[in-house]
């Protein structure tokens, strides 16, 4: 049976004391996707990813990985095909980058050649014999990604992977993540609090706010919410509304403006002529676009950081 969703959570909940960090989360990560897990700081992204990896125990709910319900007994077996980078990279500072990867390669039981391959992918060739304590934060982050890529798992879970990277590094990381499904058949879950970042990497998106999944669908579908409208400002809004209603056009009011759907240029010209005939003074005709940021903010709350 083909597995359509590599990760499925059902009512996944995590409570610390009286605080509910994750609340009845139903996450679905389709195979072959780059799933952007988006939410403001403290929304519950890392806690959710930790629960998926078995690093935190859910208070309630269940997790299915690769179509198999995960539990304490089969957790390690299921995670054998998973790579992860949670919060900050894990490393032994007194060992070299290569030695660090050797430890994980041995634990994962993958071929030694994998070490060279992942070092090449993350471009750490020159620093492979250097002690990790002497690495910059960006290099440590790349080492963390190399460690996650070891064995070329089916599923890669990356929590804020661009943290600490310079703009060039961020760009490199984004490009790499985008190629993982097509080049290596890896499904990627990548979390971020930056909408622009997810917009450039993901094809599926889940938006979390105060521990609740407020949106989950393809990025394309999210973009379709970014609808265009025409805003009109006149001296006689009531007459303008009745004129528009005569033509069967829906109108909504926003402060001094009347908002109507995006219409053909010919109809807008016809409408303007009609308003002049009715002695309506037309002050403004503007094109309005609800941006992804607006959608994100409306889903997560205005107070959230982007």
């Amino acid at each position, binding site marked *: 049976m083909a597995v359509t969703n590599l990760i499925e959570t059902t009512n996944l909940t995590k409570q610390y004391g009286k605080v509910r960090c994750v609340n009845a989360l139903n996450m679905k990560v389709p195979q072959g996707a780059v799933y952007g897990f988006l939410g403001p700081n403290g929304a519950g992204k890392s806690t959710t990813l*930790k629960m998926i*990896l*078995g*690093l*935190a*125990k859910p208070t309630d709910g269940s997790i299915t990985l690769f179509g198999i319900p995960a539990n304490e007994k089969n*957790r*390690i077996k299921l*995670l*054998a095909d*998973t790579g*992860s980078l*949670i*919060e*900050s*990279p*894990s*490393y*032994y*500072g*007194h*060992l070299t980058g290569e*030695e660090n990867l*050797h*430890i*994980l390669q*041995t*634990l*994962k039981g993958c071929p030694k050649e994998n070490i060279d391959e992942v070092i090449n992918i993350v471009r750490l060739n020159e620093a492979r014999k250097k002690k*990790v304590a002497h690495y910059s934060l960006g290099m440590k982050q790349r080492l963390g990604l190399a*460690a996650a890529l070891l064995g070329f798992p089916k599923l890669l879970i990356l929590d804020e992977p661009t943290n600490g990277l310079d703009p060039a590094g961020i760009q490199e990381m984004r490009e790499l993540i985008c190629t993982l499904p097509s080049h290596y058949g890896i499904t990627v879950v990548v979390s971020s609090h930056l909408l622009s970042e997810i917009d450039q990497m993901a094809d599926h998106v889940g938006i979390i706010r105060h521990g609740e999944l407020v949106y989950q669908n393809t990025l394309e579908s999210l973009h379709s919410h970014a609808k265009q409208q025409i805003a009109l400002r006149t001296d006689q809004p009531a007459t303008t509304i009745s004129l528009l209603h005569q033509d069967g056009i829906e109108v909504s009011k926003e402060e001094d403006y009347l908002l109507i759907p995006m219409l053909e240029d010919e109809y807008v010209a016809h409408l303007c002529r009609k308003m002049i005939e009715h002695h309506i003074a037309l002050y403004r005709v503007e094109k309005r676009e609800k941006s992804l940021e607006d959608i994100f903010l409306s889903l997560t709350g205005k107070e959230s950081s982007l």
Partner: protein
Amino acid sequence: MKTLLLEFYKIKRRNVWLTMFAMLSVQLLWGLWAFRDPKDWELQCGWMSLLYHLSLLDGIMVPTMMAVLASRLADIEHKGNTYKQLETLRSAGSLYHAKAICGCIIIMLLFAVQFVFFILLGYALGYEGNPDLKYYLLSYVLKIASNLSLFLLQLALSMFFANQMVPLVAGLGGSMAALLLMFVTTYSFLPWGGNLSAALVMSEWDETTRISTYFYRAFSSVETAAVVCIFVWIVVFYAAGRILFTRREA
């Protein structure tokens, strides 16, 4: 097995061996100084005297050594935030087990070196006869057991607390307790008193002749219970440490 071998790989360049052997060297240097130029009566009871002094030295120094060893093994994981990665590849229990076994092997090797050195020293000084192997072997086993119990206590603390000051302060406090115990008793049920309870040779100092008499200890029932207690501590500290470690969240 892989996990255990990797424990030794991980401590590469961490100077764990060097730290342990540096502390052992202090004992060895003390031995060279204290046993130099032995008198006739000292040569006669030399092998017993060695066992007695080793117990004394270990009682003073080893609790600190065990705290340092446990801290060195656990600290590499805390510093690099590695548990959250390792625990996706191995269960927390097996990671804890590997650390405990790794420490146990180091302790066994450490005391093997100690025994070999002091036996060679005894021969070099011309002690009469040969060491009583039965007592030396028993002493080695009890020494491993008492120090393993201490190590497991320290490991539990070091693995649980990211700040290594907590277990190190506990270790130093324990060393002080061990030292004080030596003045007042010949056995103790406290984990830090294990070296005291496990001592096989006792001594009596004659003030007038200024000669020490050494004799093998006849264990009373309470002293035997203190020795059994060492093995109970091993089980308790290992289980408690493992439970604490596996129940926490990475």
